[in-house]
């Protein structure tokens, strides 16, 4: 059972600014810790770093109020994009942060690398591009687990994947 540690609809979240941590009385300590956390940044250089990135997103998303199964889906999406970084760029970084748009709250994950970049984004988002993708995994798999998914890439500059999951 996931515990809902704060009400994401609370008005105080509307004025959230990560550079100016909330001190409002309505905020619980759990909430404050989410707000103060700003964004977590994890360097991805080896598969051990994937563990850390998943750990970060799981903690944050659980504070936001995601269910256990959704936490798993988000962690899985992180694994897939991180795997992609290691495989094609060698290294990169993943940032995780709490987001709010209108009355929605969620988490945003940005995975970026300064690798060779992807010439054909359409091809890379098609199933069957690599072994795992034939089974619906890889980047297309990550896209299906998240609500929003965006990928940009520039040859010789690198690739950035931005994904969001709403509560």
């Amino acid at each position: 059972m996931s515990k809902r540690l704060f009400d994401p609809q609370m008005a105080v979240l509307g004025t959230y600014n990560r550079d100016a941590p909330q001190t409002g009385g309505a905020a619980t300590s759990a909430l404050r810790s989410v707000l103060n956390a700003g964004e977590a940044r994890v360097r991805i250089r080896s598969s051990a770093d994937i563990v850390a990135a998943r750990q970060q997103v799981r903690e944050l998303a659980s504070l936001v109020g995601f269910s256990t199964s959704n936490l798993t889906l988000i962690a899985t999406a992180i694994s897939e994009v991180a795997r992609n970084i290691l495989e094609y760029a060698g290294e990169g970084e993943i940032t995780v942060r709490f987001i709010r748009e209108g009355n929605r709250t969620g988490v945003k994950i940005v995975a970026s690398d300064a690798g060779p970049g992807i010439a054909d984004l359409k091809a890379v988002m098609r199933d069957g591009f690599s072994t795992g993708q034939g089974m619906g995994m890889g980047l297309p798999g990550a896209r299906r687990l998240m609500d929003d998914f965006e990928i940009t890439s520039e040859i010789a500059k690198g690739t950035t994947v931005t994904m969001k999951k709403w509560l």
Partner: protein
Amino acid sequence: MTVAALPEGAPAVGDPLRTIVDSYVAAFHTYASEPGEFALVRAYELGRQALIQGLGVLEMATVHSVALTVAFEGAVQHPGRERLLEASEKFLVEALSPFEMAHRGFREANTVLRRLNEMLEAQSKRIAYALHDEAAQLLVPLHLGLADVAHKVTPDIATDVQGMRGLLDAIEERLRNLSHELRPPILDDFGLVPALEFLCTSVSKRWGIPVHLHAAIDRNLAATVETTLYRITQEALTNVAKHARATRAEVSLVRAADAVICSIDDNGVGFDAAAASERRGLGLSEIGERVMGLGGTLSVGSRTAGGTSLTVRIPLEY
């Protein structure tokens, strides 16, 4: 660490499942004694590996059950049963997560396939219209013109002109047939059951094989489903007429709780699979693809009484 002996019935050494089982049992043991992201990543990686190796969800359930049995046997002495259960759920969910990803991919592909089917259907309709209503109409003035010319020329030439008119008739006939094959207008005009009745009657007349239709459906089906069922019946009856040496055939269309089921049976010679793939291969595989596109299933079998039975099942949500 040493892994406890696996319970009876666990996959034997050498079984491809066994490697996964051993790694899974070890990783679950680690997670149960020290819950953390590291062991969860292992669960996920094992699930991913299993999926790529072609294992299914049921096999993963077996693997998990073995790991749980091993863990419980070791857990009797310490008070960790509740924690073990909680760990069990989290670990399993993690190991199944790649399967969820694959499942979502499958569902998405299915939706795309369905849309593609609808597009093809619409295209067929357009081409059918162009052939029948446009191309065939253009031939009418030509026909009339030739008839007119035939009156104004010598009998010799008139005979030639009549010959040309005969060719025009053949072209018209061909266009009409092509158009009907693409999209039987009777489907649009009267619906599936009358269309099937018409089909059965024409097969009976043309090939001299009585075809009985038993149709019991109480609602309209989606246009793509209707066309698919019509085409399947058409293809199957053609097969029966051409290859089965049957003396009668039966078409049945019924509604189950969540699907529509159409079967075409005959009392012919049945068919042997090898010869069938040569002879009927194209027709059958085309039918199979159409049905798959609608999320349905197709089965072909020999009936005990002799003959062949082809059954198609299409889920009703379509």
